Every structure is written in C-alpha cells, then in structure tokens.
C-alpha cells in the first residue's frame, strides 16, 4: 500500500543493474501503482530480486504484490526498520514528507505510528524518558501509542540510565505561523533559497570556479556545486545558526585567524616548529577551503537579501506578524499576484495573513482566492481547499482574533532583536520569536501552568505523562549538570526553529539541553508544496 518509490536500487548505490541481484526499497507514502507494475516487467529477466520495506513491513503492500503475482519472485522480503535518521549531533528526522498532509488533511495517522515506534526504539537505546509533555491532537495520539506500546513490551524492561529527562511532543498545527515566515539564519536562508535536501545543498557553480594560475576561467563549471552541510565542519557549526546579518563579521574574523595561522610559518625557526606547523597544515587548508565556500555562499545569499523584492516581502511578513492591517487585502500581495510571482510565495503570504488574523473575512478571503484562481489557473481550487482544511487559509469563524493576545503573552515580537549578539530566540527571524520554541522555553521555566490561558487558545489538548522508571535508574543529578529535553515536532520543523533551540541549549542559564527530532526537515515552501494538489499531474 505504501509504495512511494520502488526503484531498482542503482540509485541507492547498490550493485548496478547489470549484476544478477536487484534490490527494491519500499518507502512509505502514496503514489500510483505504476511503480509496482514496473517491477513486474523487470521480473521477466532472470535476476535475483530482493525487497526491503522501509521503515517497516506493510501487509497491504505485500498483498498488492501478491495480487500482481510478483511476490513469489522476490528471494528476500524483509524490512529495514529505519524510523529516525540522525542528521547531526543533535538532530533526528524521519524524512517522512507527507506526514503533515496525511495527519491534517487525510486523517491518516500512519506517520504517527512510525513516530511512536521510533520513539520506542530510541527509548530502548537511551532509556525510558520519565516525563512526556505535549500539545496538540497528534502529540496526544503519539503519547497514547507510546504508553500502549510500553505495556506491550512490558517485561523487557530496559535497564538503561535515561539520557533524556523530558520528551516534548509538539504538533505543527499548534504553530502554523513559524514555518511560513522567511528564515533569517544562515542555514535557514540557504534552505529558503537553494533548498537543503538530506544534508546537501546544490548551489549555482559560478562563484565556486577554481581560479588557478595560468588557465583563466575559460570554461565555467556547469554542474551545480554540491556541498554537504553539517556541524562536522567547524566553521559551518559556528555560523549556521547565526542571523545572516552577523555572518559577514564572523567570516571576516575567521579569515583573519586563518591568515594569521598561515603567517605563523615565518616564525617557525626550528625543525620542530616547522614540523608542528606542517602537521597542522591539512587542518588549516580544510579551514581555508571551508571559508572560501562559505564566503561564496554568503555572497550568493547577500545578492538576494539585498534585493528590493526580498526586502518588500520581509516587510509584509513583519507587518503581519506585528498585526498591522491583517484584516485588509494587502497591496503588496495584490501586486505580487499581478506580476505572477511564484504561486508558493503568494500562498505563503496569504496563509501567513490568515494565521495572523485567525482567519480572514469572507470578502478578503474570496478576493485572494479569485485572484489566485484567475492568475494561476482554476486547477488550484483543490490546493486552496486543502489549505483551508489544514487551517492555513480559512474564513474567520469568530469575530475575535486571538493572535494579538498570543503574541503579547508569549512575547512573539521583540522590537529590539539583537542580530549580532542575540539575547533572545527572536533573532532567528529578526524580531519574531517562533511560537513553538517559546512554548519549549516556557515549559523549561516557569512551566506551562503560567500560560494556561494561551495554551487553551492554541488547538488541541496539552498534557503531561510520567513513565515509571525501574528502581535504581533515577538520575542522581550533580550540581550544574544539564537536563536534556527531546523536542519532537510532529509535521516538520524549520532550520530557524532548530537554530533557536540550539541557542537555548547554549545560553539558557537554566541548564537545559535540547535534542531535536521531527518527521521532516522543512521550510515554508516545501511545506506548502506538500499540501498542494495538482490534478493534471495525476492523470495516469
């Protein structure tokens, strides 16, 4: 049933198709069955076939294969239980793209089941998490399943000292606003502009042309430059979560340090000193090339962030977030539609306006809808319906707009956000503090009881559960030892939110450390895209 990609594994780096063996990886998600028919064709040849279900075996898929009469052709039918994939030292993702859509549009909670299973695996490895907090319907569902599974596994009590003190489950629909806003951290902007997929980014090659002596840049590379982005790279770890406006300074500081380090060679007099210098060379050269790469990326981004279009867009976003004129048709959006700016950009803006106004007046809503349909085509009717169903772009049902209350109580807008030396998480959006992270922050101190009223305004229940630890596994906390919280975003998380949590891990004097897990790493664009329906592309 869940056959999204059922491709011969040459893509996955296993033996080429000329060999006798073929692997099929079966990933969850919805798609047409043409892929399995393709398998059937391939079955004709006399090869060995293996099938692996990721993240776990699906009876329906097997049944489907059986109906097609190809199940018997597989030598091995197995599952590869891969729920949570580590992306960085503090980041896990299931990369389950359709999770939000399935949960909120289609009422299909398969992804939540996988989440619960993944969390059980995590607990089997890192100990039972004694406290579970959550907000939202999906969070409640996952917590229920976890408690239920715990009963199922009763007896195989694990005797591991818990690594995590708290688990916080957050529904994406508790905070629809944050992913819609343009992320302003370095990593966030790379993602917004170029899109980070599976830890890699593809960049336009021009800026990366190696300028070697002799051969002038006569043939520019045409292949996009592919770069891996994670904290293993020292420089990237340092700047990824900074506001982009602080990146320039950081880069030039780094440049000075590196050139100073290279200058050291003149001071090296003795053979021993030279040897020491040489031993550091590889590291220094790596640092230098890393610096060169990031300087190029920063230049690329700067070209965009200094453009009028970017500035106008950001201005509108910030107006919405501060509650300026959210109940009227916005001129900038009108102009953008008239100029046929990319549809997703328009959708992000109108959704943002709707969220910040707790729904739009029917007249305003219909106006936007008509503009979109007339400009981009009537086929987007289905997408608009989806957005409405997901609560992103909806008519106002009550006359009261509670967003201002939420904004004020949770201090979602900080007028004097310090981008260079941040003192609050609001720096990641240059003023807007992500709601999801505020909730996390308040949970740590002073606790959710202090914002009971606001929590009631946000959708879904909030709850607290405790899991009994076997005797003797209670952590004896030493003075100054950090508490660790696993924050799980059901339905996706943006890089800026991750940056905000990392900021809290580093600075918060409450000694709280955060590990982040999610169903999908995303941004407003990929998110909205996952909610779009394109009827014409569905034609068989």
């Amino acid at each position, binding site marked *: 049933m869940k056959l999204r990609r059922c491709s011969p594994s040459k893509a996955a780096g296993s033996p080429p198709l000329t060999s006798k063996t073929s692997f099929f990886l079966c990933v969850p998600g919805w798609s047409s069955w043409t892929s399995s028919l393709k398998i059937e064709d391939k079955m004709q040849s006399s090869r060995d076939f293996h099938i692996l279900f990721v993240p776990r075996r699906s009876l329906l898929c097997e049944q489907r294969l059986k109906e097609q009469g190809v199940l018997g052709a597989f030598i091995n039918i197995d599952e590869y239980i891969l729920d949570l994939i580590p992306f960085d030292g503090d980041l896990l993702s299931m990369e389950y793209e359709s999770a939000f859509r399935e949960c909120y549009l289609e009422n299909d909670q398969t992804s939540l*089941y996988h989440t619960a299973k993944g969390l059980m695996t995590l607990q089997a490895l890192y100990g039972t998490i004694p406290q579970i907090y959550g907000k939202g319907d999906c969070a409640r569902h996952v917590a229920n399943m976890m408690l239920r599974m715990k*009963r199922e596994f009763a007896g195989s009590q694990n005797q591991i000292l818990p690594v995590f003190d708290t688990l916080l489950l957050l529904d994406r629909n508790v905070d629809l606003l944050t992913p819609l806003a343009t992320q302003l951290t370095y990593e966030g902007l790379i993602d917004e502009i170029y899109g980070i997929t599976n830890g890699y980014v593809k960049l336009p090659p021009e800026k990366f042309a190696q300028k070697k002596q002799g051969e002038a840049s006569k043939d520019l590379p045409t292949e996009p430059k592919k770069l891996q982005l994670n904290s293993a790279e020292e420089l990237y770890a340092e700047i990824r979560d900074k506001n982009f406006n602080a990146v320039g300074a950081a880069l030039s500081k780094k440049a000075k340090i590196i050139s100073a380090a290279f200058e050291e060679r003149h001071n090296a007099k003795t053979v021993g000193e030279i040897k020491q210098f040489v031993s550091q060379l590889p590291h220094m050269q790596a640092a230098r090339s890393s610096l060169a790469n990031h300087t190029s990326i920063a230049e690329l981004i700067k070209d965009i962030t200094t453009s009028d279009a970017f500035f106008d867009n950001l201005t509108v976003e910030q107006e919405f977030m501060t509650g300026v004129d959210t109940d009227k048709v916005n001129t900038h959006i009108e102009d953008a539609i008239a100029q046929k700016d990319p549809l997703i950009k328009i959708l992000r803006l109108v959704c943002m306006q709707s969220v910040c106004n707790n729904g739009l007046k029917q007249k305003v809503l219909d106006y936007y809808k008509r503009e979109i349909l*007339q400009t981009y085509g009537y086929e987007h009717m*289905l997408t608009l319906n989806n957005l409405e169903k997901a609560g992103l772009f909806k008519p106002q049902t009550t006359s009261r707009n509670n967003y201002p209350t939420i904004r004020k109580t949770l201090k979602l807008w900080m007028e004097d956000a310090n981008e260079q030396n941040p003192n609050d998480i609001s720096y990641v959006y240059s003023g807007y503090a992500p709601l999801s992270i505020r909730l996390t922050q308040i949970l740590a101190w002073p606790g959710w009881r202090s914002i009971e009223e606001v929590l009631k305004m946000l959708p879904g229940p909030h709850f607290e559960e405790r899991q009994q630890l076997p005797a003797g596994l209670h952590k004896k906390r030493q003075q100054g030892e950090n508490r660790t919280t696993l924050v799980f975003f059901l339905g996706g998380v943006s890089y800026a939110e991750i940056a905000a949590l990392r900021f809290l891990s580093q600075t918060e004097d409450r000694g709280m450390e955060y590990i982040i897990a999610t169903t999908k790493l995303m941004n407003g664009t990929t998110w909205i895209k996952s909610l779009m329906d394109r009827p*014409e592309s569905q034609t068989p």
Partner: protein
Amino acid sequence: MAFITATWNPLGEAFYRKTELYEMHWTMKDALRDCLVAAAPYGGPIALLREPHRRSPSSRPQLEIYSASGVAVTSFPWKSGPVVHLGWTVSDELLCIQEDGSVLIYDLFGSFKRHFSMGQEVVQSQVLEAKVFHSPYGTGVAIVTGSSRFTLATNIDDLKLRRLPEVPGLQGKPSCWVVLTQDRQTKVLLSNGPELYILDNTSCTAVFPPGLSPQSGGIVHMCVSFSYKYLALFTDTGQLWTGTSNLQEKLSEVDTNMLTPPKQMVWCRRPKSQQPSVVLLWDRLLMVAGVCCDTIQFPVEDQCVLVGELDGVRVISSTNQELLQEVPLVCQDIFKIASMAPGALLLEAHREYEKSSQKADEYLREIKEQSMLGEAVRQCVEAAGHEYDTNIQKSLLRAASFGKCFLTDFSPDPFVTICRELRVLNAIRDSSVGLPLTHTQFKHMTLQVLIDRLVYRQFYPLAMEICRYLKIPEYQGISRVLKHWASCKVQQKDLSDEAIARAVCLKVGDSPGVSYSHIAAKAYECGRTELAIKLLDFEARSGEQVPLLLKMKRSHLALSKAVESGDTDLVYTVVTYLKNEMNRGDFFMTLRNQPVALSLYRQFCKLQEQDTLKDLYNQDDDHQELANYYVAASYREQRLESRLSVLQTAVDEYNKAKNEFAAKATEDEMRLLRLQRKLDDEKGAGLLGLSLQETMEALLALGLHKQTDQLYRDFRVPDKRYWWLKLKSLAEREDWEELEKFSKSKKSPIGYLPFVEVCTKRNNKYEAKKYIPKVAPEQKVRAHLAVSDLEGAADAAIERKNDSEMGAVLSRCSASDRLLIDRLNRARASAAKK
C-alpha cells in the same frame, strides 16, 4: 546418623549403598509380575499395562500411569491392538508400540496425542520386540519384526524410518539386542547364539568383544550404559563381560555363577565413577557385579523393575523404591569409618561444638594446621548435595556453615546455591510430587527443564514457588508457568466463561511475557469462543489480538481493536478482510462507525478505486468532497464537452455544499474554457488550458485588445491587475508610445513606480525618467535609484528627511561620490538631532 555406613556395601575399593526413596503409594500384589512396565529416567512417571497378552477380545487390559512415588495419575482400558512395548519420550510422553507396528503417543494424563507407524510391511510380519531409546536427537524407536528385520526411527518428532540390512542366518528374533549411539550414528548390536553383529544403515558386521573367551558360550543378555559408552554382555555360561561399547577395550569378565539369563541388566555408574558396576536382576536375586570382579548380592523378595539413571539405578518393587548407587567419593571421605578427611573432621568438630565440648576446638585446630578448612567446607557442602536424608543434609550444611565462620575470604556462593537447590529438591522429592531427582541429575537436567516438568505435571503453585524462590527472571519463570496454567485453565469444562476469565485475569494480571492471545487461541481451539473474546480483551499487543479476532469472525471488534492500536497497517488488514467478507452496504456502514478506518480506506481508494471513493462520499452526503472529486476528475477528461459536464456536476455539488464561492469559481472556469475554445476556433490562439491571466496576456500579445477588454469586464478583473497586465505587455513589446498613452488614460491605480521599473527592466532609462515626476513621494527615492540617479535620489531622501532612505542611497554611493556622501551624512546628522 552414626549408622550412615550401615547401608554401605563394599565393592572393590568403593562402596555401594541402597537408599529408600519411597514407600510406594500404589497397592499392588504381584501385579508387576504380569505387566508391561515402563519407567522413565530422571524420576519420570511409571506406566503399567496389565496382562497385555490376554488376547480374548472381550477383556481389555488396563493401562495405568503413576508418578515415580506410585501416586496414580490416570488409568484407562486399552482399546487398541496388542502392545509389545511401552516407553517414555524425553518429554514424558508415553509411547505404546503395538504388534502391528503402529505407535500410539499419549500424554502423562492419558490423553491420546497422535500416532505413527513403523512401516507398512510390519503389519504383516508383526513386531516381535521393540525398544525406546534416547539420543541427542530426541527419542527413538527400534523394532525387530517377525521377518527378522530391524527398523529404526531416531527421532519420533521428525519421523524418518530406516530399515536396516538383513542379518545373515537370523531366524525370528535375536537372542538379545541393544541400540547404540556412536559417532552420531545409531546402530543396533545383536547376538544370535554365539555370534555378535553390529548393524548400521548399510551393513551388518560380525564383531568380537576383545577378551571374551570362546568357551563363554552364547550371549543371552546385553546392556549399554546411560551414556552409551560402556557395554555389558551376559553369556549362557554365567559370564559377565564388560567393556567399551565400541568393542575396542575390555574392562573385566566376572563369573556370576548364574546359568539363567537375568531378567534385567543395567549399568550402574556415576560421573567420575571409581567403581562402575552392572546390576543384574533375577527372580530372587539382585547382583551388583563390579568391574573389579567383586560382587554384592541382595536377596529380592518381590517382583522388581530396574531403572537406569545417570548416577545409579532405581529399583522399583510393588512396595517400595530404592536408589542403588555408588557412594560418591566425597561422602565416602566424610563418612568412612575413622576417616581423617578434612570434611570428616569438620563434621566431628561441629558435632562436638553442639555438645559444647572443647574437643571442637581440637578438631578445628587440626584442620587449620593442615590449612584444609576451605577444603573441609567444600567437602561438606558437596556431600550435602549427594545426601537424600534431610537430617544428614542439615548436619553437613551446619558443619559447613560453622567452618565458614573461621575463614576469611571464602565465597559464600556455593554454600548458598546448594542450600537453595536442596530446598527445591526436597520439595519435589516429596511423595505427593514424586520426582526423586538426585542433585547430579538435577544439574544435568537444568532448572528450566525441571520447571517444565512440574508444569507438565500441573504442579503450577509449586513451580511458581520455585521460580520465586530461586528468583528466576519473570519472563523465563513465573510468566511461563502462568501461561501454561492459563492454557490449562481455559480447558476446564465445568467452569463458566466469566469464572475462568476472572480467574485467569486475576492470576496472570499484567505479568510480562504472558500472551493473552495465546491463551485465547487455546480457548478458541476448545470451542470456547466467548471465553476467547473475553480473554483477548486483556491482550495488550494488537498485532496478536486482531488476527485471532478475525479468525473467530469478530470483525467489528477486530476493527475497533486495530484502530485503538494506532497501527494503520493492522487497520488495513482488517479493512481488506472486511471488504472481502461483507457485502458493500454493510461494509460501508461498518466503516462509517470507525472514522479512522474510513479515512484510511479513502486513502486506499484514492489510489486504487476512484469510483468507490465517489460512492463513499455519496453515502456520507459529503458534497464538498464530492465536488472536489469531480473537479479532479474533470482534468482526466480529454474531450472538452465531457470535461464541462463533469465540471457542471461539480458546480451542482458545490451548490449543495453551500460553497458559493467554489460554485461560482467553477462556473467561471467553465465559462473561460468555452471562451478559450471559441477564440481558439476563431483565431487559432491556442488558449485552451491557460489561466485567465495567461489568456489575457496571450490575447494582448496577439494584439487582440477588444477581446482582452471583454474578458476584463466579464470576469471582473480588478483594475490593478489589469493595469499591471497591460503595462507589462506593452513594455514587453517595447511599445513606448502606447505605454505613455496608457499612463495618461487615467490615474494609475498602481502608482507610477511600476512604469519606471518596467522601463528600466528593458534598459530604457530615457523612458523611465518620464514617469519619475508622477511617482508618489514615498516611492520617489526608489524610482530615482532605479534609474541610477543618485543625485535625484539624494535630493528626494533629504527632502523627506527619512533616515533609512538616506541610508539606502548611501549604500549605493561609491567612493567617487564624495560630495554626495558628505551631503547625505550632514542631512542625516541634522535629521537625527531633531
């Protein structure tokens, strides 16, 4: 206690002793005489078949099963054919080998389990003799038939019959034979008069036991040891030959002075045996013939049966049961008269100590002087394990405990272990339980197997006590017992479903590792579906629960349990099952009551069965979704007419759903499609499928202004967008004249900055500058900057005294614009002052 050695009989260097295990519970006069008897090793059960040979059809022999202590377990009349041999399997199941070669398997409680046959040809030739044997592969059966052929089955649980080759010159049955397991092969050793043959899979080889004198005569009885390592042969001249079973080595040859062959002959050894022996049983005599050629003779008054054990021989008579064994070396050391072994001294020391005598100290000193106290304690601990009498156990353990006090650095583990194990052993040796295991046997058998045996005998409380007492992890201990208990409990026919469910739930509770679905499956097997459902309710693992519910045709319950579990795959399983089992109406109704299942089914239909999806929405009167469905469907239609008719249906549904906007929009779409078709037909414009905006763009590009204006009015396009459209289209065509005219046609609803921008985009600064004066003041700076007129921009910014605008201009200034920079900085400073 002083008389411990009273029952000891010397044999060569060692001693043999007979320990009474039980007074038998049964009342049996001479009954053992005319019986087929089978007693399992390791204190196993005893089976009796009385008078098996009475062939009159009217009388039926009685099959009786007893525990090792003679407590009746069950008895029932034997209704099948004549039985040749009885035997027990390693898992305490009774094998009844019949004359016709069929083997019937019963459990301990006399319920029939299954049967198998030793081959078709046996039905004709009949079984003359049969033997049951145990090997690492399991329990095997060997028979010899009337046609003098042997057939073997090495493992009855994985039945493979092997017919062994013919034995030359053999008529009828051989005089005696045994089954040997050697080199991972099962063979038969048989004698026919004076000749001895080894029969394996392929051949029959004559063999000669080394050192057996030809005068000894024909071999009339033989036996192998418990471990299959040693062999004993008895000849018709009364000679007993012992040697290794591979016939390579002779151990001894003893003259028994008995000319009749013994009724039974069994090896009596123990691990690390000093003085192994063979026990021979005649009607009135029990003889222990040591390999050292020494013998012990016991008179026998009664019919007896010998059961070979790992470390001795059990002698069962109609009144009592004794264990005959070589006295373990450590016991000999301690209890031998005048023994000076450290253990003996320690025991003596403790005895004096209890009498408050100072001699205790003397004994202790003596041991300590030799630094043998540790050894003494070890000896006492070990000897306690070998003793059957609890008083002796206690005195040995007390002595050990006493000795321990004078030792530092002595690990208490062996002492504690033996105390615990003895407590368990004493409990199971009790005649009500009747498992007379020695400590050696217990260690060999392992605790796991012991618990299994107790469970099998339905001693559930005892098994649980033992698990608790020995602190076996719940998963392997109590839970396992409970599982069996519950499976047994559900078969009790005299109790109501409620009572059983309650009892099971009460006892099992949340014990880890006990699967309620396993218990429920058992109940279902016994035809108690209601009970099974009740029990399944306690099952936490839905993966187990749901399939069983489906099997019991409780599909609604299965569906709700699957939904509860959150495992969508499981829900799909049930849904697919229901879909095949139910008619469509019922199926839909069932789904309606389970929203989660319904939405999953919708997902399935979206991919698989679009038509079913429609029916589902129809049934729910979900007009909104139905309309969306039609909208999506319209894109699959190739022909315009059918597309329009599908869209019309969508409009109707949107109307029913009271979604006026969507209805209107869809009507607009239809209108647009029709218009596009018309224009395509008239002008060949290729518009079909374009959006309204794109259509107008295309029309403008073709210079069809009238038609564009028509659309603009028909679809009530906002002025702003229309202006943008025209503006861009004119700029695209670089029709500057027309653009200027357009700008003057009326006041621009979008302002004049866009005019500047479209011109600069086309690199026409000249045209762009025309519109700058018309640009609203707040956009002036931007307009000037767009045409790179820094001067103008600066003027505008300074005029407006706007700091950020001045900043924007500054950022565009290069070093050469010194004057301008200064001017701006001054203006900024003065603006800041105010």
